């Protein structure tokens, strides 16, 4: 086996040194009837070239060369080449969690830079080293708010990503923690403020909203924060499309931000690995889940970085820990850090403006077709929009697929009241030609006889 650095003679020599007659001696502690005495029924050993052939063939079975207008929590942005050059350096790729600070300063400093960038972009004081993803981060942020407030109820906007809400429900239901869902204004697509006012009580630990929300609409964070804080609850803002922060005002009034950083240079990869992260006001840092890197000095006075405040974590506190999280998404956080270094202060704004322009053009062009109209026009949007068509999406999406275009996703899947409504996303990668082709396919309705 080509990954195993030993000859048969070396194995024999080692067995002799141990004093074992055969390798089976070393497994004799496993009772005989629990030992596997046959080959595993898995594919035979493959050559490297065969492995590549297998996965290439699988890749070809997927759709390639399709233009796509899918977003909904997973965004296709351009990934600068140096991201993969750098993260594939063995020193980053094949290193462990940086518990031994003297020989992991590279990872530690990069995480410190990541924490800084996330704090800068979100307008929060501090950020952690990453969470699994946006959905689990939202659930953990809600638990964090419960620890801070000593309350148990969470209020969630219906316009939070439906799968994030499902994950939050899973985390909550087994501890019987109540979650109330608040609907949206059918004109603006924003959270229904009157309903929110009714839902938030003295029992509420946190209100969680997403902005831009699942419909692509930017919520009125200052107004929501005022309402939430009046009842002594915390506000959590979930951000699924991180590039929006280049041009959208950060939610500075909020207490906690739970973000999915996939947009920052992370491949779609059929939904993962992504990069969640929690940021917050400094006073809440001791209730944060996950790892934190802090700056310190070594014995000669040089600056250095360490994992810190570990007394929140499972390996110290066990059942009293703030979370059970151990392994997080470090290498993906490194991708995001490199991405943000490439774009920088000006680039992230310019990139976000290009997204805004593409989505504006696409929204205008698609909605000007007969039988099509934009929903939720009463509030600002970023790079997603909801299109309502007279024709069923099942019909027109077939025409788009024939033109090698994947159109918007059917919202009826999660919102039965939004019949014939689809969620479209246009990032900087979508070209005008893609948009025009989608418009033509949409417009090509069969003539009714």
């Amino acid at each position, binding site marked *: 086996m080509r990954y195993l650095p030993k000859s048969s003679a070396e194995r024999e020599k080692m067995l002799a040194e141990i004093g074992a007659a055969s390798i089976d001696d070393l497994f004799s502690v496993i009772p005989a009837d629990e030992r596997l005495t046959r080959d595993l029924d898995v594919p035979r050993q493959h050559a490297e070239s065969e492995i590549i052939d297998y996965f290439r063939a699988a890749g070809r079975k997927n759709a390639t060369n399709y233009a796509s207008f899918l977003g909904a929590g997973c965004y296709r942005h351009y990934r600068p080449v140096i991201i993969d050059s750098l993260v594939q350096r063995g020193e980053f790729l094949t290193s462990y969690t940086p518990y*031994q600070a003297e020989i992991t300063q590279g990872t530690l400093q990069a995480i410190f830079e990541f924490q800084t960038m996330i704090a800068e972009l979100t307008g929060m004081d501090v950020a952690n080293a990453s969470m699994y993803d946006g959905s689990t981060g939202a659930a953990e942020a809600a638990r964090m708010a419960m620890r801070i407030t000593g309350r148990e109820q969470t209020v969630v906007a219906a316009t939070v990503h439906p799968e994030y809400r499902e994950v939050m429900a899973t985390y909550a239901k087994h501890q019987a923690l109540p979650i109330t869902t608040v609907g949206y204004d059918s004109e603006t697509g924003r959270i229904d403020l009157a309903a929110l006012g009714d839902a938030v009580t003295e029992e509420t630990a946190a209100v969680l909203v997403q902005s831009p929300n699942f419909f692509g609409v930017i919520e009125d964070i200052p107004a929501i924060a005022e309402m939430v804080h009046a009842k002594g609850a915390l506000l959590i803002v979930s951000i699924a499309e991180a590039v929006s922060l280049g041009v959208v005002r950060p939610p500075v009034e909020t207490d906690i931000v739970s973000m999915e950083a996939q947009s920052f240079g992370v491949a779609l990869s059929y939904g993962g690995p992504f990069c969640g992260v929690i940021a917050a006001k400094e006073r809440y840092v001791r209730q944060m889940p996950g790892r934190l890197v802090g700056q310190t000095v070594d014995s000669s006075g040089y600056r250095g970085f360490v994992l810190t405040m570990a007394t929140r974590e499972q390996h110290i506190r066990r059942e009293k820990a703030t979370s059970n999280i151990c392994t997080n998404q470090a290498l993906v956080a490194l991708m995001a850090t490199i991405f943000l270094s490439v774009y920088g202060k000006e680039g992230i704004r310019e990139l976000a403006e290009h997204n805004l322009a593409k989505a504006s053009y696409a929204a205008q062009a698609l909605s000007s077709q007969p039988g099509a109209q934009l929903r939720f026009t009463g509030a600002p949007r970023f790079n997603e929009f909801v299109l309502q068509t007279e024709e069923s999406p099942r019909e027109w999406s077939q025409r788009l697929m024939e033109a090698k275009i994947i159109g918007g996703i059917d919202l009826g899947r999660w919102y039965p009241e939004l019949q014939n409504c689809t969620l479209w996303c246009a990032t900087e990668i979508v070209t005008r030609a893609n948009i025009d082709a989608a418009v033509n396919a949409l417009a090509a309705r069969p003539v009714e006889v």
Partner: protein
Amino acid sequence: MATNETIATTTGKVRPHQTQNEALLFEKSSPGKRAYKLAALDVPAVDAASLLGEAHRKLPGELPELSEIEIIRHFTRLSTWNYAIDLGMYPLGSCTMKYNPRVNEWVARIDGLADAHPYRPDSLAQGILEIIDNLQRCLLEITGMDAITLQPAAGAHGEFTGILLVRAWHESRGNSRKKIIIPDSAHGTNPATAAICGYTVENLKSNSEGGIDLEALTRQVDEETAALMITNPSTIGVFESQIARIADVLHAKGALLYMDGANMNALVGKARPGDFGVDVMHLNLHKTFSTPHGGGGPGSGPVACKAFLEPFLPTPVLQQNEGGTRHWSYDRPKSVGRVRAFYGNVGMFIRALAYILANGPDGLRQTTEDAVLNANYIRAKLEDLYELPYKTASMHEVVFSDKRQAAKGVKTGDIAKRLIDYGFHPYTVSFPMIVSGALMIEPTESESLEELDLFIEAMRAIAKEVEETPELVKTAPHSTRVSRLDEVQAARKPILRWAPAARPKAP
């Protein structure tokens, strides 16, 4: 502190500038530098301020402004401050720091896999669904279990999912029960998980051999016990030879056996948890199946279970249609619910399957045998100098204690730091907690005899230093670019980010 000037005049050696503290990106930034160029905008530009109104961002975040070469050098320099498997042996017990094959990285980046959107129609995702299905089949065969979900993002997340299955099953029988029993040798994630799932944690004291005390367990398991969470081989690297009886004790009271699969690298191809009474378990693809640790993730923590727990698996589950195509099924009325958006860390699935394909059944078995051989070789070569608290046969890792060295005032943490000077990553320090001053060594199968001998030589040399020059060991490491870091200061006055000297107001 010696300066370049003083050193240069005596030895001719200077400290090259790359090896000084590398400044933070933010400190290297200067306005106007660029590392990007956006494609020409092919649609009309828009006025962001008027489109967004109140929601428009007035002040940008203080991201660094650098050119591409500076970014490459920054991260390349930082990388050289890391130790890595690619540089040498990384014997962290419980972590399974094995070689991460490069073809895994290559195939995970294939077009059509890396750029697949999770909401593309199933009809346009058949290739990736086939990969997921194949990996599921392989993992079920390896574990001897009946059903699996790949959704959990890491080991602890898998534990969470597995214990939710346990809870849902008990609930379906009318009583979710109250407690989870956890041996005192367990990983900290186990009790943290049980607590998050709404259970109280009851500690089970290990027996004199570091294993499960069957009598104590029998006394402790009652009608309120939901499950026992066990690691097998245990965290001292010992196979629980009474595992089948342990399962019987639990099942007799209607409780379930959960297995933490952190140590599966000792079992693949040699024994299957499904064959020794385990009801539900998680795997760590980033341990046993070679996906890279990446400085702390991403991981992947599939959960495998027996058929009676299958109805409770998270949604969605993969199903095969009659024509051989596959689709996601969401019709799961008994499901515990979703534990993560989308389908899990799919990029890790691709890498794990590539690893299994590269090995085949013979390679997987040989891998396990070599991992166990390596640990036993280290044990045989060091047990005269380091105290072995439990004499039971070792599997893939060996746990010593610092008892003899502590008598000289040198602790396991000191020996670990000294190992760095010899060019090795330290073993796992002070874990498991049942061993006072533990040195937990897991070499994995990826070490050659030559590397093992060098490690053994280093450990023997350190034992000698402890006798002769203990201060040398207690102040290690001496050869790293930074010396021991002040962790107390870091925690007491946390500096968790860089901040600009001055900042305009308003967001």
